[in-house]
Every structure is written in structure tokens, then in C-alpha cells.
């Protein structure tokens, strides 16, 4: 007699299926399988009871209303003539992008303020403080810190996009909406850092940010869902300029320069907080 496997016993306990009748019949007849099933049942009952103690927090009675308040501003009515038809999704996405962009602009603005405050402070402090070397170092360090973080996040997003799995068969659309949104976020910051680097006369960083901007634009302007072929095209464009390699090299260089720039770290943190 062939005994039942663990898979069959678990499937019998957990899933509905046509074969269940035959398994039930076998369990009636076979003491060994019955004993195994009893053991399995006892163990799983205890395991599931333990798992059931992992409580889900109550989101509250007003939760649905809160969710609505959080998303309502991002929803565009489906009836407006300009939003109807095949472009409806894009219009909603554009609207969402607008709000995302506002959030991002706030963040990027804050980051930029950190940098700009130091740059603006340079002129003022030059008149008041005879020795400006530490202040200049501090400013450079802030710029390097911000750019280093930005390069790291960009590299991570592009690496993920390059590693996104293409489903076999190729017919299915691949969702890259999350990466697209991140590219949009990064793009806003990138422009600010590139301009700052140019003002600072840091051509190396400005150049790599310029190249990165083109790649980010490409991703940000892609559809949220792409075919395998389209994704491959994006990957090829990422690979063509060797941007990932450049990001790594310049990122390492930025990190090295950060370490080599002597500043009072307490001042750095205090100044960042003030901004």
C-alpha cells in the first residue's frame, strides 16, 4: 500500500480538492497514515494557535475616512472631458505626480536649503569672521554629504530597475511605477545639486549629475507599466553610458572627500538642525 505524503496530508487539511475524498478514504483504512495525520493536525493546530496570537492592530473606526482623506486629493474625477478615454490613467498619474512632486519639492527644497544656506552664509560670514577655513570646509562637507546620499539612492534605484525580473512569455506588463516615482523624486533633487555643484565649480560632480539627470528623465517619463521589450530598452540605455559605474566611482570619491574634509562635526549637525 502506498502511504500518503506530507504534501497530500497538508493539502487534505488545508485545501479543498477533488482528491480529498480519496485521501479521507485512505485515512480510514491506513493506521500509519492516520497516525501521521493526527500528529500533523496536532502540530499545526498548536502552530496556528500560536500564530493567531500575532494580533493585527485595530486601525480605528475612522480609518476608512482617514484613508479617503489621504488619497482624495490625488484622485481626478473620471468625467472631465480631458481625462476621458485612453489617456485617463495618464491624466490621473499626472495629477498624482503633481502632488508627489509637491512633496518632493518640499524635501528637495529642504535639502537644497541645507546646501544653499551654507553657500549664502559664505558671503555674510566672510565679513564677520576673519578665519573662514572651517566654515568653508563645513559647507563643502554638507554638499558632499547631500550629494553622496543622492548618488547612493540613485544607484540603488537604477540597480533595482536593472534587476527587475522580466516575466517569461513577455506578454505581461511589468509594473515599474515605484521606480518611476522615485526617479521623479531624484530628478528634482538632482537638478538642485547639479546647479550647486556648478556654482561651486565642482565640474566632476556636475558632469556625473548631468548624465544622471538624462537617465532619470528617461525613467521618469516611461510608462508606469512596461513590456519586457520596453524594460530591456531602459536597461540598455542605463548600461550604455555606464552610469552605474560612474555613480559608484564618484560616490566613492565623494565619500573619500567627505572624510578628508576636516570640520567640527558638532557644528555640522547643529547647522543642519538650524536649517
Amino acid at each position, binding site marked *: 500500500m502506498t502511504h500518503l505524503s*506530507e*504534501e497530500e496530508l*497538508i*493539502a487534505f487539511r*488545508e*485545501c*479543498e*480538492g477533488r482528491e480529498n475524498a480519496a485521501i479521507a478514504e485512505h485515512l480510514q483504512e491506513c493506521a500509519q497514515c492516520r497516525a501521521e495525520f493526527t500528529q*500533523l493536525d496536532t*502540530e*499545526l493546530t*498548536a*502552530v*496556528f494557535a*500560536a*500564530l493567531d*496570537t*500575532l494580533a*493585527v*492592530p485595530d*486601525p480605528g473606526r475612522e*480609518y*476608512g*475616512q482617514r*484613508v*479617503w482623506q*489621504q*488619497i*482624495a486629493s*490625488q*484622485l*481626478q*474625477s*473620471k*468625467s*472631465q472631458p480631458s481625462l476621458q478615454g485612453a489617456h*485617463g*490613467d495618464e491624466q*490621473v*498619474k499626472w495629477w*498624482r505626480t503633481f502632488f508627489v512632486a509637491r512633496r518632493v519639492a518640499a524635501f528637495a527644497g529642504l535639502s537644497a536649503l541645507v546646501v544653499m544656506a551654507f553657500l549664502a552664509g559664505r558671503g555674510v560670514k566672510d565679513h564677520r569672521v576673519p578665519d573662514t577655513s572651517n566654515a568653508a570646509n563645513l559647507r563643502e562637507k554638507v554638499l558632499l554629504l547631500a550629494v553622496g546620499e543622492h548618488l547612493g539612492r540613485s544607484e*540603488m534605484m537604477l*540597480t*533595482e530597475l536593472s*534587476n527587475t525580473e522580466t516575466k517569461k512569455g513577455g506578454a*505581461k506588463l511589468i*509594473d515599474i511605477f*515605484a521606480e518611476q516615482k522615485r526617479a521623479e523624486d531624484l530628478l528634482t533633487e538632482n537638478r538642485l545639486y547639479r546647479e550647486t555643484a556648478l556654482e561651486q565649480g565642482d565640474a566632476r560632480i556636475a558632469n556625473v549629475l548631468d548624465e544622471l539627470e538624462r537617465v532619470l528623465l528617461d525613467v521618469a517619463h516611461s510608462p508606469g507599466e512596461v513590456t519586457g521589450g520596453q524594460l530591456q530598452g531602459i536597461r540598455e540605455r542605463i548600461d550604455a553610458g555606464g552610469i552605474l559605474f560612474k555613480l559608484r566611482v564618484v560616490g566613492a570619491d565623494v565619500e573619500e572627500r567627505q572624510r578628508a574634509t576636516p570640520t567640527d562635526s558638532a557644528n555640522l549637525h547643529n547647522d543642519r538642525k538650524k536649517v
Partner: protein
Amino acid sequence: MTERTVSPREGDAEAIELTLGGDRDAYRVLVERHSASVFRLAFRLTGNRHDAEEVVQEAFLRAYQKLEQFEARANFGTWVYRIAANYAIDRTRKKRIEEARRKEPSMREAESAENSAMNLVPDKQPSPERLAQNVELRKQLELALNTLTQAERTAFVMRHWEGCGIEEIAVTLNSNTSAAKNTVFRAVKKLRNFLAPLVSQMAGARAMGTES
């Protein structure tokens, strides 16, 4: 012209029709009606409140964007559920890739050793230790769920906690019923292997603690 409002009692189908007809606020009925259940699923899938809330918001935004694709005879709750599960799968997969890249292998090993079931506090001890043990148990349970792939976790959550049918799980996972069944099996087997010795050890220790 009188303003048309949708009462919470109106069915999903009517709310969808109104939304597609241009009454954006009709979508509110769907959001308010289904948010809590989508949150429950999202929390089970992500394991934390912050991520779960983000999944809920994104699921309703995506559902709104794709509402034209929704088939009238289908169940909106199931549909948005599927969108949430898919987004959670995708999101967790990406997070895991990011985390794996950040963590050194040695750190992972150290973490794994620290979380090992062998490090549990013996049970027959006074309440502070007992409390610590409960915390440890919770940690182990979460760890066990984290050993599942995201597809396995989704299949298990949908089957065990949400009572979904195999066909529904198969649709969510973009697979067939046989593969979905297999995914449920793998999840249950992993959880059994991981947790059964631990649960039995704790039950034994508790019994001894009660006797003494």
C-alpha cells in the same frame, strides 16, 4: 440641479458606476467600506503598521486608476484585495533586495543565531522572564513568517487568516490552482518545521510551570 450623494448602504456596484460616471466622491464609499479589511491583509503581509497603511493607500489609488478595467460582475473587495496583495508582494520583494544589499552576510548569521529558537528563556520562571519569553515567542513567530517567500506568505495569509479559496489565491499569485496549492503547502510545511518544535517546547515548559 440637486447634488447626488451616495449613502454607505449603497452597493459597491452602484458606487463604481457613479465613480466611473464622474462622481469622484462615490469612490469614498468603497474606500471607507473596504479599508479595514485591506489593512488587515496588508498588516499580515507586511508585518508592520506603517507599511500596511502605505499598502492600503496605494491599493485604493491603483484601484481607482484601473477602475475602468473592473468587471461589473466581480467583487470589488476581492479585486482591491488582490491589488493590495500584489503591491505588498512587489514592495516587500524590493525591500528585501535593498536590505540584503545593505547587510553583510556575517551580520545575517549573527542575527539568525541571536534569533534561534535555542536561545529561548526557559518557561518555568517568574513573570518578568515569562514576559520576556512572550516577547521572544512573538519574535520567533514573526521570524517564521519572514522565512516564507512573499508568494508563500501571501498564500498562507489569504488561506489561513482571510479564508480565501485556492482559486482566489491562484489569481492573486498569477498562477494556477495546482501551483497555488503547492505554495500553500510549502508555506505550511516551513511554518510547521520552524515552529512546531518551539511551540511544543513551550507548551511542555508551561505545563511544568503550572505543576510546580
